[in-house]
């Protein structure tokens, strides 16, 4: 393909994937409200839109109550008066929500969404993604998540409000601290797969997911992701009791909505990354025969990831700020460094063939 064709393909595919994820974002909010409601013995939003079923026994029956709630929310957010507080820094105040959303969308570029689907995947590439074959895909994700902090920090600063600034500072400190553990746990799949290409990592999990080989790394990664997303139990930057609402307290209307959009889209994209790095990505039964199934598998894995995050939010109380920091630096970081070093040594020893005699000796002993 010529560079022009590559660019046009990336534009079209990127537009479609982004659109799909934005729709997904709307329904993620509904999913969260519904599941959270059920977990707290409530019903959740159930008024906006439903599918009527034929009445049985004189009782009116409704299916999927609340299915149009995201549309109602969007209409409400767009039609709200767009209030800008008097003493904000106008340029940065308007820039900050965009800086929050853009990284959340950019991460999607390198995530493999399916295998080699005919027609959709041009020839040198082996998997479907907006930007397939990026040989530094994992590092790209780390880079984009690391610039994601700007939206929150700048929103806090530009609002010219003490609560917002405190929220923004908490956010930056928290994200810097947990990025280290996240980066170190991401190195493990790279070492196991011998590739920084996301597609290579998925392909290396053909015979077994990395979560079985390295549950510690997967666990650390998921904790760091929760902290990176600033979701409960790590949502200190929007602790209502302490900061009223944190960095977004001075925002209203759709600008406020954009911060939520960033959060939910990041939830989806980071669970896609977790699925790719540790849970086999788009792989599943019969995916080699029917490559289109990859879209189904990755969607199921993303939804499971989202449900887990919602479940955790409903189950755990918020950490205290000093607990959060000391947990990140004194527990998570040393454990992930140790895990990384041990894994590196084990991999080198395996490559040198040290384990072969040991394994055969054990097999001989068992076999008699």
């Amino acid at each position: 393909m010529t560079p022009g064709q590559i660019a046009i393909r990336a534009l079209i595919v990127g537009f479609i994937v982004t659109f799909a994820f934005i729709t997904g974002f709307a329904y993620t909010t509904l999913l969260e409200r519904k599941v959270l409601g059920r977990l707290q013995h409530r019903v959740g939003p159930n008024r906006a839109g439903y599918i009527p079923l034929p009445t049985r026994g004189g009782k009116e029956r409704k299916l999927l109550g609340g299915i149009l709630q995201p549309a109602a929310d969007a209409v409400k957010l767009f039609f709200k008066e767009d209030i800008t507080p008097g003493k904000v820094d106008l340029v940065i105040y308007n820039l900050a929500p965009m800086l929050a959303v853009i990284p959340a969308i950019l991460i999607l570029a390198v995530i493999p969404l399916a295998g080699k689907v005919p027609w959709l995947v041009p020839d040198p590439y082996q998997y479907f993604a907006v930007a397939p074959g990026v040989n530094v895909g994992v590092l790209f994700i780390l880079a984009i998540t690391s610039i994601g902090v700007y939206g929150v920090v700048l929103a806090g600063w530009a609002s010219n409000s003490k609560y917002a600034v405190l929220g923004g500072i908490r956010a930056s400190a928290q994200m810097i601290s947990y990025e280290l553990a996240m980066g170190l746990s991401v190195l493990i799949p790279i070492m196991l797969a011998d590739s920084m290409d996301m597609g290579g990592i998925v392909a290396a999990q053909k015979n077994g997911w990395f979560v079985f080989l390295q549950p510690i790394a997967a666990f650390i990664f998921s904790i760091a992701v929760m902290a990176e997303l600033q979701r409960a139990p790590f949502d200190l930057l929007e602790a209502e009791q302490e900061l009223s609402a944190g960095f977004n307290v001075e925002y209203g209307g759709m600008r406020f909505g954009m911060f939520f959009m960033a959060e939910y889209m990041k939830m989806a994209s980071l669970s896609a990354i977790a699925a790719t790095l540790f849970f086999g990505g788009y792989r599943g039964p019969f995916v080699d025969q029917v490559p289109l199934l990859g879209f189904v598998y990755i969607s199921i894995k993303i939804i499971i990831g989202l449900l887990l995050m919602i479940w955790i939010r409903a189950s755990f109380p918020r950490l205290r700020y000093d607990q959060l920091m000391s947990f990140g630096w004194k527990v998570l970081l040393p454990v992930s460094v140790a895990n990384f070093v041990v894994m590196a040594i084990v991999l080198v020893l395996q490559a040198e063939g040290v384990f072969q005699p040991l394994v055969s000796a054990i097999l001989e002993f068992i076999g008699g």
Partner: protein
Amino acid sequence: MGNPIVFFILALIAIASALGMLASRNAIYSALFLVLNFVTIAVLYLVLNAPFMAVVQVTVYAGAIMVLFLFVIMLLGAERSGSRTEGLRDWEWILAGFLGAVLIIVFLTNLVMNPSAVGDTAPFIDTSPAALGLRLFEAYVFPFELTGVLLLAAMIGVVVLGRRKKMAQLEKGGNDA
């Protein structure tokens, strides 16, 4: 070298953001212009067929160092205080002029003496992460290890300095760290 049009657009953005960093009165704006500059340089690396360098540039400079800068600026409230409107002192003008002149002279002499230096060299180098890693650990292993030791020393220095302050506070009788 990639597409010259892309290069010139990027170069313009890079220079404009560097000037913006120097010219803006507000420290936060300066920091943001610097971030824009780093990201533009990262895209230039991409154009030069060095994706690893590009991504590392974004992660380290834009993602880590500048966030810390912002952190410090916001905590100290330095965005309002540090406005030196009276301009530069005499020796600062002289030093800046001297350094700028040296830079331009070196650049021009290189250009005149060795015109092939601006040729189309980039695409012939293997810039995959594996090749880069091998070069770092084979040809450049000594500088690499030296950098590691330097960083370790800096890290230990930070820990020691932080601890000494805490000890002094304790000796004075204050119990809040």
